[in-house]
Structures are given as C-alpha cells and as structure tokens.
C-alpha cells in the first residue's frame, strides 16, 4: 500500500490510464483544429470531438448535439446561469437556488443580483436536501430559472432532481442542475429526470482537468443561451474558442468507462464507504453522520468528530489525504457554508471530515484510514477540554464561554 492514501475523490480524481491513452494521439500526430474543414488534420480532430460528444451524450441520455464543451463546470455554470438570465431577463427577473450550492453557483447568482435579478436562496434540510415542495413554494410568476445541484460536493446528499425537474417543466421554468459530483457516479438521464441544462467536469470522473461541458436541451423545451464569450461562434454559437481536442477526447473516454462500469463501481464504493463508517463508529463514541442516509452518493462519507477540531484531526491523519469542513484549512476562519446551511451547528461543522472513496480505493486503504482516524481522534480527545467536560456530565450548550477569536 502506497502512502499517503488518496481519499479526496470529490476534490478531483486521477486520470484513468485508459483515458490518458485516448488523449495522447491528439497531442502528437493528430493535432489538428476541429474547426479546420479543409484538410485531414481538421477532420481527424473533428471526428475525435464527435465521438466524445456521443460518449458523453450516451452517459447522460442526451443527444450529441446538446453538448457544449467548456473548460469545466465553473465555466458551464456561468454560461448556463448568465446565458439564461441574458436571454430570458425580459421575461422575468427571478431565480431560485440553494444556500448549499457550490460557490460557482452562489457567486454567479450574486453577480446576477447586482445586475437586477432577484434570487431566492432556499435553505436545505438538516440532511442537505431541498424538496420539490420547497421549490414549488419559491416559484413566482417571474421565475425564469431554478439552479439546484444534483449531488452535494461536501456531504454527498442527492436532491430529488426528477421531481424538481417535473415541477419546473409544469410551471414553464428552466431547470439547471450542477451534476459535477453525480455524473458517472449514479445513473443520470436528462430525459427521465426532466433536466433542461446540466454541467459536468472531466476531472471528477477520472478525466483531465480543464475540460467539461454543458448539456443544453434542444427540444421540449428548446433552451437558448446568450454566449458569455465573443469569438468564432463555436459550439452552436454558445461557446467560442478552439476546442481542447485532447481534453475532449479524454472526457469522452472517461464517460464511456463510467457508463460501462457504473453499476459495479457503485456497489463497490458503497461497500467500502459503509465499511469505513462501521470501522470508525464501532470504535469511537460520539461520531456524527452528516448527510442523508437514503439519498446519497456512493463514494462520499462526511463525519463529524465532536470535541475534536477538524484541522488538528487532518494534521494527525497524515497518511490519508482527506478534506475538512472546518475553516481553518483555508484562509478564512469560517466553517463550511454547506454544513452551516444544513444547520448542523458550528461545533459539528468545525470537526467534520469528508472521506472520498473512488475507483482506486482498496479495502486495505479503508482499514488503514479507519485505524488512523480512530487513533488520532482518541489522542485528541485526551487533549480536549470539551471532551473532559462532557465526560464530567457538563452540557456544553449551558456553558458561558468567555468568547473566542
């Protein structure tokens, strides 16, 4: 077993060797510009792009013509939300999203607010889920867009996209879903799930960084977007710029592999995820599960270890690369906005760890990770004045804290 162990698959994934092999020719002899129509170099590149379009479309149940390549999900989110706002702004100025969305969605929504749009930020429930009923209540006559993620990147909770999509369809509102964490991990079907726009990113599904796409529905309804970059009018005029052919070939191959291995890999990751949880919770008291037990990603486990601060925990489990919902890991001193929106309490947010399980995770790695987590949490609790107080029977919520910084 190689150390450190990578267990941060929601942050990014390694490129699958099969994906790399699919990309290499387009760095070498077949380097043409997919927009060059007059010679074989261009034709080869165009063919690679067309194949990728089919592979991506097949994974999500779309038509290849509905795929618009971008540099990744952040760009696709900007294009979807700003593109809709620019196109349909005369029809209405209201957008619905959620507090636990990715910053790319929240910051784009804030940008649109400055341009005169009104945004409703729904609060998720304590499991991180937004219900279709909550969306229904938020919809207004002038609502033009609902933007809700499929799977949350921190806690792995899945939103009921099919129901939300059906509701939006019925009310004539466009529905965009950030499916960056969902595509390739769980079944996605833009037809059955009533999706109008969807974004995905290659590097979350064992493809390269710097490439992704936006699915834009062409019929029933036909979604129109105002391009956010001026240029040669590539991608049906929605996204100008010479196509990243090797990256796109890689994204296509990544999707094809995901489609082929989806069911088997889901089962494997669920088994490893549950094994990890069992191995940790059977040996530690006071472990808190963050997320939704029923509606969740296979490869994501978010646990809080009360009375232990997240960053010190990360420092201790140095053999395992994981991510913390605690703030101290970043320059800001705020805990995760997702756990905050879920209202799990700042104390739990400060002590949360996200374990990401993926294609290369082994049972041996799970064992090692669990052992180290248990050992470090026990050690840090020995050090924790809060744990001491709890053992003495003090209710921490009744303590009058002198105030922190």
């Amino acid at each position, binding site marked *: 077993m190689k150390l450190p162990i990578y267990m941060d698959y929601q942050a990014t994934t390694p490129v699958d060797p099969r994906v790399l092999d699919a990309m290499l020719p387009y760095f070498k002899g077949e380097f043409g510009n997919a927009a060059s129509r007059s010679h074989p170099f261009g034709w080869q590149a165009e063919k690679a792009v067309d194949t990728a379009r089919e592979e991506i479309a097949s994974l999500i149940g779309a038509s290849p013509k509905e795929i618009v390549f971008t540099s990744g999900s952040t760009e696709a989110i900007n294009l979807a939300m700003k593109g809709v706002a620019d196109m349909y702004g005369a029809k209405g100025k209201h957008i619905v999203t959620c507090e636990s969305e990715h910053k790319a969605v929240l910051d784009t929504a804030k940008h649109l607010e400055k341009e005169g749009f009104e945004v409703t930020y729904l609060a998720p429930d304590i499991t991180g889920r937004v219900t279709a009923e909550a969306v229904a209540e938020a919809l207004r006559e002038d609502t033009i867009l609902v933007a809700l993620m499929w799977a949350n990147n921190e806690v792995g909770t899945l939103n009921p996209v099919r129901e939300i999509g059906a509701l939006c369809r019925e009310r004539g509102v466009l529905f965009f879903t950030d499916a960056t964490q969902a595509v390739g991990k769980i079944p996605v079907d833009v037809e059955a799930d009533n999706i109008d726009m969807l974004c995905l990113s290659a590097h979350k599904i064992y493809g390269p960084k710097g490439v992704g796409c936006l699915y834009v529905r062409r019929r029933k309804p036909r979604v129109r977007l105002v391009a956010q970059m001026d240029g040669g009018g590539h991608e049906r005029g929605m996204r100008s710029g010479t196509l990243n052919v090797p990256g796109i070939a890689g994204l296509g191959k990544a999707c094809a592999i995901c489609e082929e291995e989806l069911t088997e890999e889901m089962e494997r990751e669920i088994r490893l995820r549950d094994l990890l949880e069992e191995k940790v919770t059977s040996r530690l008291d006071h472990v808190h599960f963050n997320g939704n037990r029923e509606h969740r990603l296979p490869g994501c486990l978010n646990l809080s270890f009360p*009375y*232990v*601060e*997240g*960053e*010190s925990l990360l*420092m*201790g489990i140095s053999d395992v690369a994981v991510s913390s919902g*605690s*703030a*101290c*890991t970043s*320059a800001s*001193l705020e*805990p995760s906005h997702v756990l905050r929106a879920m209202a799990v*309490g*700042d*104390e739990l947010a*400060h002590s949360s760890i996200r374990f990401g399980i993926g294609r290369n995770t082994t049972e041996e790695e799970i064992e090692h990770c669990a052992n180290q987590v248990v050992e470090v949490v026990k050690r840090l609790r*020995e*050090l*924790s*004045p*809060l*744990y*001491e107080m709890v053992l003495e029977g003090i209710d*921490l919520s009744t303590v009058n*804290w*002198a*105030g*922190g*910084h």
Partner: protein
Amino acid sequence: MAYSDKVLDHYNKPRNVGSLDKAKSTVGTGVVGAPECGDVMKLQIEIEGDRIVDAKFKTFGCGSAIASSSLATEWVKGKTLDEALEIRNTQIVQELSLPPVKIHCSVLAEDAIKAAIADVKTKRESDLKKESA
C-alpha cells in the same frame, strides 16, 4: 498549509497535557475561547507562594492552538506570577513561526495564562479575607 517544525513537535508530543484539581486554592484555571469558534483552551497553574510550580493544559483547536498552549505551559513553569504575566503572544508567534492566520491561537494562549493567574489571585484574596474574618 505547511506547519513549522516546532508546531509539529508540540502537536505530536504535547507537553504538560492534563488537569490539576481546580478545587485547590493553589490552582488557577483559565478557560478561553468557544467551541463554535473552533478553539477552546484550558490552562491551569499551580503555585507555591508566588511561583508557578506546575502547569497543565487541554486544548480543542487546530495544531497551532495546541502548540501555542503546550508552549505556554512550558514557559510559565518556574516563573513567578508577575513574570508569567509578561509573556506576550508575539513571543509565541515568533517561537512557533505562526503564519498570520494563526495569530489568534497565540492571543488565546496569552489570554489563557492571564485567566489562570487571575483565577488563582482571586482564590488567594478570598482565602486571605476568610483568614482575617
């Protein structure tokens, strides 16, 4: 974020972890910070006359907070109360090479020392009052 060797050393081998009997009149306890802020430090000192003869800590917080409080217990031991009051957070920052985002950890450690000293002084004064009464 990279940690300095000294922070890592204190984190891996924290000095003076534990608790003193807070009911004792010669023990001063300082608890500072709040769980929702991600830092709580408990620092205790035991005095003989005016001198700190023992110190213990427990900290809920990041590695830098643990290191700051561990270092604080090392520094106060053997000092008189007045000498210990002179310890400044900037000295802790310097000793542990704390980055700007971690300065609050050193501030908390200084506050914890002051709170523990104030506590033992209050106890001493009330004892004196009892004796004179």
